[in-house]
Structure formats: structure tokens, C-alpha cells
């Protein structure tokens, strides 16, 4: 005879708890994290360097942490902006986790930093599942990557609070179909803002900074449908919390850390999408 324990535990619960702690700790210091996700080679680093430079010009205290499997090339590029930059080498791991980020910030993150840009590992699959305690999640796609990218990577695009199209100067040569791309984004994430940028031409530079500053000041970020989890009596929180029905399972990230702004609502934000 087999004995059964109904755990009903979210697999990523530990990461989610870590992300909540980090978000709260950073909020107490006045820092908001911007989590940048994209494929390798989509232009994250070039855009981020331009945004950091713009932030310095405007007097916004920023810092950046960049994660790669290997090399410190990105940190060197970003450091040209003059902002404090830290390179994290993941030794082959395809994504950052909240605990890793917290350990890297410990003792490094300078006081007074209002915006911390985290350049995640270049990958649109794995990083999408991990809340890093960010206040704004941004997904980038270059015009050379194809209009159906949002449909191929629906979790990444579906959870984005801002979509940034890069290398817009190449839209013509690449035959980029802007309307098809926008339709694909809207399919997986209705209502999310899409901005077009070209670092080479200086187009759209500063928009990411504007959005990040707004969120840091308390302007609510976009709430993607994929992050709006219905709450029933049967939400899958924590150990031993039984499910009363076969529907309205919340999901892995929902850990009942309501942050006060949606109490009593029928919809509870994914913690990843809840502002500090």
C-alpha cells in the first residue's frame, strides 16, 4: 500500500519567496529592478548602454547587473556609461534566480540607486519562469528575429510589462512586418506597450528609462493577462493547502504575498507583476 501526501506546493515557491523578500528589501532602499529578457544578439547590451548613459545625463542614479554564461565583455561595454556595473557569470546556467541576484547585490549595490537594470542571460525560455523581484519586466526583440517571435515564446512575451523592438533601422532590409509583430504581441499580451528603438540612429533611446522611472515613482506598470491569476477558494498556496475544486488553480508563483493593492479583488497579481 502506498501512502499519499497531497503537498499542493508550487515548485518555484522558494524562488518566489526569495523574489518577494528581495523586492521588499529593495523597495525599502528606494530601488526598483528592471528585468531585461531577450534572445542572444537582440541588442540588450547596446540599448542598455545607451539608456544608462541617458540616465547619467539626466542625473538618475542607476546601476546595472549583467548575466552571461561567460566573458565580462558586456560589463565592460556597460561600464562606459559611467554607471556602476557588475558582471555575473552563471557558469552555464541559462537563467538568473532571485537568490542568486540577491547574493550578487549584497555588499555591491551602491546606496541611492533608484533603478537597477538586470540584463538577464540571453534566452527567452528559462528566464521567463523566474521572478527576480523586479518591478518592471521588459522583453526585447530585434526586427531581424521575425514577427512571430512573441508566438514562439509566449511565456516571455506574455509576462512582459513593456516590449522593446530593437534595431528598428534594419526593419526595411529585414522585411520586418510591423503590423504582424504587433498583432502577435497583442495575441499573447493584450494591452502591453510596444516601443521601437534604434540605438544606431538614436531613435527611442530614453523611452525605457522613462518607463522605468515612472514605475519606480509608483506609476502602476502594465498587468499582463498571463500574470492575472484568478483567485478562487482553490488556490494552490503552500503546504497542505487543499484544493476545493478542480478549477482556478492558481499557479506556481502565487504564494499569497498580497501587497495590499489588490485586496478583495477577484484577480490577484502574479507577485512578479506586483509593484513594491
Amino acid at each position: 500500500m502506498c501512502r499519499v501526501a497531497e503537498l499542493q506546493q508550487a515548485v518555484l515557491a522558494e524562488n518566489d519567496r526569495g523574489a518577494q523578500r528581495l523586492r521588499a528589501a529593495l523597495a525599502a532602499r528606494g530601488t526598483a529592478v528592471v528585468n531585461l529578457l531577450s534572445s542572444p544578439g537582440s541588442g540588450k547590451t547596446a540599448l542598455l548602454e545607451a539608456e544608462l548613459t541617458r540616465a547619467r545625463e539626466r542625473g538618475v542614479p542607476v546601476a546595472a547587473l549583467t548575466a552571461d554564461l561567460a566573458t565580462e565583455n558586456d560589463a565592460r561595454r556597460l561600464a562606459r556609461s559611467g554607471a556602476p556595473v557588475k558582471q555575473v557569470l552563471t557558469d552555464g546556467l541559462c537563467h538568473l534566480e532571485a537568490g542568486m541576484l540577491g547574493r550578487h547585490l549584497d555588499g555591491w549595490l551602491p546606496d541611492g540607486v533608484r533603478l537597477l537594470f538586470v540584463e538577464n542571460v540571453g534566452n527567452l525560455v528559462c528566464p521567463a519562469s523566474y521572478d527576480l523581484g523586479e518591478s518592471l519586466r521588459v522583453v526585447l526583440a530585434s526586427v531581424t528575429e521575425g514577427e512571430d517571435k512573441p508566438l514562439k515564446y509566449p511565456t516571455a512575451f506574455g509576462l512582459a510589462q513593456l516590449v522593446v523592438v530593437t534595431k528598428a533601422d534594419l526593419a526595411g532590409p529585414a522585411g520586418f512586418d510591423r503590423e504582424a509583430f504587433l498583432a502577435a504581441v497583442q495575441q499573447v499580451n493584450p494591452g502591453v506597450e510596444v516601443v521601437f528603438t534604434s540605438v544606431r540612429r538614436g531613435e527611442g533611446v530614453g523611452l525605457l528609462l522613462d518607463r522605468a522611472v515612472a514605475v519606480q515613482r509608483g506609476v502602476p506598470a502594465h498587468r499582463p493577462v498571463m500574470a492575472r491569476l484568478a483567485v478562487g477558494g482553490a488556490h494552490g498556496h503552500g503546504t497542505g493547502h487543499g484544493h476545493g475544486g478542480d478549477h482556478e488553480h492558481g499557479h506556481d508563483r502565487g504564494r499569497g504575498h498580497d501587497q495590499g493593492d489588490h485586496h478583495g479583488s477577484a484577480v490577484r497579481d502574479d507577485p512578479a507583476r506586483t509593484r513594491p
Partner: protein
Amino acid sequence: MHEMSIALAVVGQVEEAARAGGPEADGRAVERVHLRVGELAGVVPDSLHFCFSLACEGTVLEGAELRTEAVPGRARCGPCGGEWDTGMPPRLGCPRCGGGAAELLSGRELQIAAVHWADRPARPTVPEEG
């Protein structure tokens, strides 16, 4: 491929449940772990199965079977009340009213539903702490 991280997290949580004791766990091996995987969770079950067997080695889960249950994506439109299967790739705008204020009823689960403990004890070589 983050399925290895997911598999290790599953093993870690089951080990924790085993340590927490409970009459079900008491020194027993794990026979089977039942996992609910939403179709929007971004996890590939085949890959997860492969990683799970590796992650179980040397733990109370050694030899345990992983059973995954796929949970389809479903959404409900707040304003008009329409409900639909999101499909894959998901369609998250309301097909009835065209609104974009829906909520997700299911589809992002990545959840350990149940652990089945065997009648046999866990192997004596298994360390107390993982």
C-alpha cells in the same frame, strides 16, 4: 533549458516534506511524484522527466516515478464573462468582446500535487540532510 533547475526544486521540496516527517513519510522511499504542469508554464515535460531521474539520484526519491498532468490554459474575461481555452500559442484577448482585461483561470501551474510514499524504507545510504 531550466528543467534541471525545476527537477532539483521538486526533489528539494519532496526531501523537505520527508524530513518534516508526517506519518506518511517516516523513513520511506518515494514511489511517485505527481506534478501538475500548465501548458503556459514554459516547461517541457519530456525534458523534465529526463532531468528528474538524474536529480533523484542519491536521495529518498531515487527510483521514483514522475507523473505529469498537463493543465490546459483557460481564461475568463472580466467585463463580458466569456471563458475560453487559450490554446498554444495562447490567445489572451477575449474572443467574444475583444477586451484585454481577462484573467487566467489555469495554465501556469507548476505544482507538486502529491507524493506517494512506498512501503519500503528509503535506502540506508541516503544522508539525513540533502
